[in-house]
């Protein structure tokens, strides 16, 4: 990796920004599994694995699974955020591998929010 100059950093940022949003990328949906110490303690690894398994078993390529950090609401871990094309992000809470299956089928494959497990939609207020 060549060392960046100020100009490189700027160009890199523009390029990466495009890649980060799912519209211009190839994926139609993205799952973010919230994994910090508390999430992992509450079972986030099993949730991540459940999503990976679904993707592998079904041979799916247009759904991304990534990890990020805790979303702050420790009492409702494990949590995930689902980004689906043209939809506001949806947060699901208190997950189990069984719930993952349903979310995968209804939301990720067909774009229908699974109301009973969802906490809310939208993202947090940043200053």
């Amino acid at each position, binding site marked *: 990796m060549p060392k960046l100059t100020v100009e490189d950093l700027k160009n890199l940022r523009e390029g990466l920004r495009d890649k980060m949003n799912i519209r211009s990328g190839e994926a139609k949906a993205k799952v973010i599994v919230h994994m910090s*110490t*508390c999430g992992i*303690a*509450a079972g986030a690894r099993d949730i991540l694995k459940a999503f990976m398994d679904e993707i592998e078993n079904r041979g799916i390529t247009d759904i991304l699974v990534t990890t990020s950090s805790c979303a702050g609401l420790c009492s409702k*871990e494990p949590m995930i955020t689902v980004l689906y094309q043209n939809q506001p992000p949806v947060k699901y809470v208190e997950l189990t591998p069984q719930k993952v299956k349903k979310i995968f089928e209804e939301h990720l494959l067909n774009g229908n929010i699974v109301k009973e497990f969802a906490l809310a939609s939208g993202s947090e207020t940043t200053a």
Partner: protein
Amino acid sequence: MQTDISKVDEIVMRYGRRKENLLAMLLDCQEEFYYLPKEALEEISKQTGTPFVKVLHAATFFRAFSLKPVGKYPIHVCMGTACHVKGAPRLLEAFERELQIKKGETTKDNLFSIETVNCLGCCGLAPVVTVGKDVHGKLRQANVSRIIKKYRSREGSDA
């Protein structure tokens, strides 16, 4: 148990025998042996040129170290504030009753030992206990014996 001095040697070399890294060496030894054997402390003292009393001072000053061997599954009961108000002291007693040892002791079969810690950083899940590397959150006394059984049976099937 014989202490493998070559392991200590490796750890000391990892930090280029630098005195400033005493703490890091002790942490690595603790990780390696699950406690700090006297031989290891002596070796560190010799190789870094730090007086033995100073090494011992550090080894007894910090909570992370233990001078006695601990069990295969060390149990750490969190005594942080969040866990305290959610009943950690009674949970500790439940573990002590279940294993018939006190805090700081190891069971006869060398499987479990009980220690307390000040906050594991998962206060949202209080009360929290770690067994080995597993974190158990929102624990109740009624769960204690099941948890212990789980680890015991893991041993049973290994044997």
